[in-house]
């Protein structure tokens, strides 16, 4: 198998409402990624775009509409899609492009413009539920998170307080991220006292709706060596989807994330992830999700993530820094772009280029993960310097 490296990265600000169109956001992130490694569009063989529901941007077949902004002009350009897991799946897609030998270079772009959807982007989520058997109950997106969080708390005897610390940590980490939308210094009490939207979920347990884009450039080993002495390798990829009958499975544990992680670990030769992974960016659209995903990623035992959090292990200065970027909770959550933001964070951490966000100890192995669909999809990328 050909080795594939990440050689460049770009990102926009994450914003509640961007003036830029989705095309323009895609361009700004892509251009920055190309500039960062001294390449131009001409150097790119193929392009893959990750973007989540058309219902956000409000354009049917939005991959087609976005193509010029994403650098797809007269190139083999394709869109990939696994719901909310797309942001970490997009570089996996780019990986196939290069590892297969079809391309020596691939531009990976992720975009989301949620603010076009009115009155609130959450409205677009009603129609993620089964049209015949669930939508007539008028579900809101938060239902599934509340149901899952409750089940998680019940199974492991956790309290809301145990979980609120995720928001505090991530929003604080985001103070150092230049793209961040809602970085903040909060206390656990602030989270617990924020409005209850759907018990046990409070307003500050939730990441915001956002507009933004991110991009990375992938290259074959041979080409990468020519333009950088610090490539970051994609050493393991995994993704997995569970049944659409989401209410028929145990919600307290994301078995699909474990499946995806095992696929990625096997490929990367990782035997003891809790010891070998030095920095991780699991997906944190809701506070408990970070913990849920740490467990699914086998970074700790089931039900043990809250303890690591409480003990400070997952702080930037801890033994296993989790979401040093500030995550979806702090940087913002333009769905697909968030996943790629996490890939970029690990890329920077492994290069020692994360600036104020840099975790100590010169990490050499890191991981990014996203989640999507109806509690169904896990996407995992293991990276090594």
């Amino acid at each position, binding site marked *: *198998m*050909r080795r594939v490296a990440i050689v460049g990265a770009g990102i926009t600000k994450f914003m509640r409402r961007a003036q830029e169109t989705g095309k323009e956001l895609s361009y700004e992130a892509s251009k920055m990624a190309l500039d960062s490694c001294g390449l131009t569009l001409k150097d790119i063989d193929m392009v893959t775009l990750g973007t989540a*529901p*058309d*219902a956000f941007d*409000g*354009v*049917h*077949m939005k*991959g*087609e*509409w*976005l*193509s*010029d902004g994403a650098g*797809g*002009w*007269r*190139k*083999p*350009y*394709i*869109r*990939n*899609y*696994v*719901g909310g897991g797309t942001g970490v799946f997009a570089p996996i*897609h780019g*990986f*196939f492009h290069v*590892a*297969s*030998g*079809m391309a020596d270079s691939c531009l990976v772009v992720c975009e989301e413009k949620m603010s*076009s959807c009115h009155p609130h982007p959450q409205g*677009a*989520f*009603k*129609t*993620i539920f*089964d*049209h015949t058997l669930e939508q007539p109950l008028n579900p809101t997106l938060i239902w599934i998170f509340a149901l899952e969080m409750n089940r998680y708390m019940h199974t492991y005897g956790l309290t809301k307080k145990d979980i609120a610390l995720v928001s505090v940590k991530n929003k604080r980490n985001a103070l150092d991220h230049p793209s961040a939308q809602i970085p903040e210094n909060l206390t656990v009490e602030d989270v617990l006292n924020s409005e209850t939207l759907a018990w046990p979920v409070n307003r500050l347990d939730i990441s915001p709706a956002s507009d933004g884009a991110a991009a990375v450039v992938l290259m074959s080993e041979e080409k990468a060596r020519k333009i950088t002495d610090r490539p970051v390798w994609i050493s393991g*990829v*995994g*993704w*997995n*989807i*569970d*049944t*659409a009958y989401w209410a028929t499975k145990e919600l307290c544990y994301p*078995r*699909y994330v474990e*499946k*995806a992680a095992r*696929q990625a670990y096997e*490929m990367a030769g990782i035997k003891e992830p809790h010891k070998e992974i030095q920095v991780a960016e699991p997906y944190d659209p809701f506070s408990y999700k970070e913990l849920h995903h740490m467990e699914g990623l086998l970074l700790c035992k089931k039900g043990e993530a809250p303890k690591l959090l409480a003990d400070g292990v997952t702080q930037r200065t801890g033994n296993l820094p989790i979401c040093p970027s500030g995550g979806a909770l702090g940087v913002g959550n333009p769905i697909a772009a968030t996943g790629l933001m996490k890939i970029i964070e690990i890329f920077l951490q492994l290069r020692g280029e994360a600036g104020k966000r840099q975790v100590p100890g010169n990490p050499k192995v890191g991981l990014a993960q996203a989640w999507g*669909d*109806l509690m*169904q*999809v896990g996407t995992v990328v293991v990276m090594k310097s």
Partner: protein
Amino acid sequence: MKRVAIIGTGSTAHKAKTPDVSYRELIFGAATKAYADARITHKDVQSFVTCAEDFIEGYSIADEYTPDQLGAVLKPMQTIPGDFIQGLGVAYMMIQAGIFRIVAVEAHSKFSNIKTPDEVASFALDPVYNRPLNLNPHFVAGLEMNRYLHDSGNTATHCAAVVVKNRKNALKNPLAAYGAEINIKDVENSGEASWPLRKADVSNRADGCIVMVLADEDTAKSLSKKPVWIKGVSWCSDTPGLETREWGKAVYAELASKKAYEMAGIKNPAKEIDVVEVDDEYSYKELQHLEAMGFCEKGTAGKLILDGELSTNLSGGSLGMGHLLEASGAARTYEVVTQLRGDAGERQLKKAGFGLAQGWRGVPTTTGAVIILANS
């Protein structure tokens, strides 16, 4: 580089409506056939690709509803919001990357379940520059057809000949929904859609599903007596804007075919390729695509078809089989595979060694994909 083959195919018979089955049941039927044809079970399939778009399915995240009916629960499965041939390209890359040995690709159409198909199609137009004009989406095809005929010298009569040929071909295809014996006058009298486009120039909608199983060389040889090898596959998107595109040209088909020919080592497609299935969602598209991909000189496709000298779309094409949304490219590929295996019954070509299938994603897109297949 090792080779990749299609080792199993499954298709429903396409119909204007399929009221007896849900989309899940429709897909399950085609998947069952494909796995049986490949002599595998769902457990042998290591990864899955569905080609679908949210607003066609009527879901905000259609990807959620993809795994069960393919046997893909707790497997690596993805959605490609693209043509089925692009999905084949993704499966090809995953196998070539050495990650999987067996991958299944699916596309389907439940077109009959969309109550507002014109509004859904128009929702793909730019929201600021185009959509507020509040037009029927076929206007994009009308603009393109007019310029293409103007530039190429092909005529509306030639387009009608495509309709006559494809609907007649469909009479011999048991999977086709719209086989008919009609003549050029019938097309001319069918009524205006968006001049010069007439109603009969537009393919009718159909429901259906197609699943294919791909495998790496070793697996294909051990499982299949008639593997059909992927010799080349590519796809391309031209500028998406209505304002910037070259209206007379199918640049995407030209560039995608060029790459696919390079991969397959094809110098003269007209001579070297025996089975040709191209997108004909609108009649003129068949002519435009054949010329763009070098099957004849520019401006000659119409006459060659009128004179019966180009036997393309023996399946009946979308005009004869029905427009199957992202599965239209699948229907084209299905026919090529069937011909290359020698299983096409009364449609069977005597010489069928190399074949090409091409897909286009419909208005207002400028995206298309090409795959080149061979039986040896």
